């Protein structure tokens, strides 16, 4: 007897005034009890809209959504009792303690008396927050906030749990714990909708609804989608040098649908299985060997979106090769420490970036990446230690030193009210381009990045992918030697992400030095070397490949970077306890 689904969505549509496309095209989905449905897609795909519709916070334009047969709008009171909702940013009151937050939500949901005490016990134990019940929510780490948010959503024993990007920016250990918690919950028959932009999380779900630009691209078990590209996925390993060049060449080819760097290897998806021979000959030139691999959800997604863009970056082609000494340490951090009151954000962080290298700072939110990054850029003064770029500290540096640096801030700080051309003209003006040269550059950028169709609109109204392009254009217009990129691809769809990285790869081949921060594990793989940061400490620096190798063991034969990170964190903690 098939059980009644907890959540039923049929032909659900939603538009917002001011947006020229629908936020949600007709979506159909069902969540049976005891299952996790992954709502997957980049920013702006419609995930939050869908969740809000299910929670009764928005009115559907067409179609219907039912929670155990109830309409969240018409039967609001009953539907709300059955639904637990955790919005982005977790919905916590930062000034209130853990207990006070729980009290508030318990009262709001009518949980009283013995049932309440019991439930508190369960929930506090489950989320391991009992020892912290007196701490202000704002003082909790990202992972703990996440658990608290979940705890608050669980108070009324909901049948349906709606989680909006619960794992974004959280450290991998906490992320795993959250998944464990959710798996326990579904044993009790709860239906969970988990929205995420991390494609690897899609594979952990029972079923996946894939959204992009409001359209539902796929609805079904993740495995089935991945199966579509079975036989077409390969890894090239053993490449000696020039893996980026190889990747670029491969991506330029028609037969290659997708390709990414995986540490020392390349992962390629072909259009047809029998193109393998072509692949082998290409790889052979670089003494690489080709093995077939298990298809991943991400591979299928990119395939569905039409494949990755060509590898050659027109932008990179245009810039001159940067010349410098072989081992010149272009960016260097020496014992960087930053304290805010009695809170230490970074502790004696040291690393060096060589010219023409991509260096990544990897870690969850709150690890100290942004703080370190800002100190490198001269935006924050270190409490002690030095941050040097080309030998001088940027904060004391005269204009010429800064002229060589390009910066792309988180969430692409563009001037929202200005249109694309005005933004480009502004940044080029600020960096000293003038007259004809300036106009030429601006026009070049517009052409290279395909911005011509978007010139008239205010930049805040542009789609995320276009904004990213524009932000990158603004950052490189003055042909800097060094680029600082702060979480440059957060929230964008995989195709846009690959395009971005093709530009980066092209720039690196021309000798530009790049420092990037990210909390995406797979993005870290594109870097030459990464620095792992955790709670203010730099716990490891090495190539992605070497980091993975360092944790190989009997239980972990083929560790992913995430596995490596978790293991390294564990070792770090053990070392600290001993010391």
């Amino acid at each position, binding site marked *: 007897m098939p059980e009644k689904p907890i959540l039923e969505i049929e032909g659900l549509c939603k538009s917002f005034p001011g947006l020229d496309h629908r936020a949600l095209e007709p979506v159909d989905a069902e969540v049976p009890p005891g299952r996790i449905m992954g709502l997957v897609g980049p920013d702006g795909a419609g995930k939050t809209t869908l969740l809000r519709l299910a929670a009764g916070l928005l009115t559907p334009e067409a179609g219907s959504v039912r929670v155990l047969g109830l309409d969240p709008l018409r039967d609001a009171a009953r539907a709300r009792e059955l639904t637990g909702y955790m919005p982005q940013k977790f919905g916590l009151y930062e000034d209130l303690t853990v207990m006070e937050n729980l009290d508030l939500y318990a009262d709001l949901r009518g949980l009283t008396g013995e049932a309440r005490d019991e439930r508190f016990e369960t929930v506090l134990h489950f989320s391991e927050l009992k020892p912290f019940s007196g701490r202000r929510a704002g003082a909790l780490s990202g992972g703990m906030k996440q658990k608290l948010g979940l705890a608050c959503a669980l108070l009324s024993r909901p049948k349906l749990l709606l989680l909006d990007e619960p794992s974004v920016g959280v450290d991998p250990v906490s992320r795993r714990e959250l998944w464990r918690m959710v798996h326990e919950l579904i044993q009790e028959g709860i239906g969970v909708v988990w929205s995420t932009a991390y494609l690897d999380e899609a594979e952990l779900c029972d079923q996946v609804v894939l959204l992009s630009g409001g359209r539902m691209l796929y609805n079904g078990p993740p495995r089935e989608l991945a199966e579509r590209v079975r036989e077409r996925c390969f890894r090239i390993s053993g490449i000696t040098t020039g893996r980026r060049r190889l990747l670029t060449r491969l991506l330029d080819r028609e037969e290659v649908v997708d390709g990414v760097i995986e540490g020392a290897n390349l992962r390629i998806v072909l259009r047809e299985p029998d193109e393998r021979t072509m692949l082998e000959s290409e790889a052979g030139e670089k003494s690489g060997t080709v093995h077939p691999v298990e298809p991943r959800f991400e591979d299928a997604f990119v395939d569905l979106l039409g494949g990755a863009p060509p590898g050659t970056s027109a932008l990179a082609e245009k810039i001159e090769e940067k010349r410098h000494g072989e081992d010149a340490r272009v960016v260097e951090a020496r014992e960087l420490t930053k304290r805010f009151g009695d809170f230490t954000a970074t502790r004696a962080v040291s690393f060096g970036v060589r010219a023409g290298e991509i260096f990544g700072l990897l870690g969850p939110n709150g690890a100290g990446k942004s703080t370190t990054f800002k100190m490198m850029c001269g935006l*924050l003064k270190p409490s002690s230690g030095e941050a040097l770029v080309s030998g001088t500290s940027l*904060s004391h540096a005269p204009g010429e030193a*800064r002229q060589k640096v390009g910066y792309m*801030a988180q969430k692409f*700080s563009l*001037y929202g*009210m200005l249109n694309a051309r005005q933004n480009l003209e*502004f940044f080029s*003006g600020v*960096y000293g381009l003038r007259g004809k040269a300036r106009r030429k550059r601006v026009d070049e950028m517009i052409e290279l990045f395909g911005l011509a169709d978007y010139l008239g609109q205010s930049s805040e109204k542009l789609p995320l992918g276009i904004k990213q392009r524009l932000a990158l254009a603004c950052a490189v217009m003055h042909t800097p030697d060094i680029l600082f990129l702060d979480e440059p691809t957060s929230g964008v769809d995989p195709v846009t992400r690959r395009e971005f990285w093709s530009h980066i790869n092209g720039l690196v081949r021309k000798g530009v030095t790049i420092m990037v921060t990210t909390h995406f594990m797979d993005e870290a793989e594109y870097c030459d070397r990464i620095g792992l940061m955790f709670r203010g400490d730099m716990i490891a620096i090495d190539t992605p490949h070497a980091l993975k190798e360092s944790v190989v063991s009997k239980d972990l034969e083929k560790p992913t970077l995430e596995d490596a990170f978790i293991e390294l964190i564990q070792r770090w903690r053990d070392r600290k306890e001993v010391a």
Partner: protein
Amino acid sequence: MLLRLRALVIKEILALVRDPRSRIVLIMPPLIQLFIFSFAATLEVRNNSLAVWNEDAGAASAELVQRIGSMGTFEEVAYVHDESAFNRQVDYQKSLLGIHIPQDFSSSLAAGTPTTIQVVADGRRSNSGQIALGYLSEVLEDFQADMEPGPAAGAPAVAVRHWFNPNLHYFWFVVPSLVAILTTIMTMIVTALSLSRERELGTFEQLMVSPLTPSYILAGKAIPAFFVAMAEASLIVFFAVFVFHIPLQGSVLLLYLTMAAYILSLVGIGLFISALCATQQQAILGVFSFVLPAVLLSGFAGPVDNMPDWLARLTVVNPLLHFKEICKGIFLKDISLHAIWSHTWPMLVLAVLNTSAALAIFRRKFS
């Protein structure tokens, strides 16, 4: 370097002009306020009511009442016939003044015996009451002089001339003051709030990483704010002269020069506030903390002359007061260069001090 500054200024102005909210906020409120407040802010004693309780039936009292009624100070004369009604008129704020003429008024006058008229005023409006009483006293004096036997020699005449504003139009005082006040609010909003908003949005970081030094970045905020404020103020001056017909005795050039100095001082203060404040919320409180006292202590509602000495001396640091004095002076009085300068140099000093402080704070925070 100047070209980079130009890029900054253009960006700022574009951001202001292209934001529909800014456009509304910059044009509508000042004009609406100008119209309403010009008419509302008056300390003239007008449209008041006089309560008359005349217990006398004689001709003398009738004559007196008639004279008072034609005074012009009182729009309405309310006749009451008993004590409680009389008291109620003033108590319930229906009348500003009340006159009680006793029963034996006419007969006493004729007989030459002393008689007393009671005048009651509303202490809750003591200021207006005193002024009305003054006018009333004159009428009574004239009446008495006319009643006295002997040649109608008449009382000595007193000539009164109100220079610069012969008819004591409150308008002429209020509108120039409003030029100063409304400009203040606009400028503070554009300077202080926009800077802190940029910091919250994150674009500020982009500027700090670029080759622009803190002085240029601040200049990039100050210059557009300056021009926008000058434009605003000009708009208000335009209305003052051509719609409200306030005379402009002094030189327009001087008005603009001092306006520039004033706006510079405001921009300096705005930059200082936003340098200190990390969040928009704090900046809002900061702006409030400046604007409210500035308006209150500018002499707009209560003259500086009436303040205790120590406070009056403190007002020298209030740029709003200085500019208001200059506006008043240039519009109505064509005041001397010396007087203008005495009000201008404090504004310039404030401009320099605040801007340097803002710059120092920025430099310290970021390097």
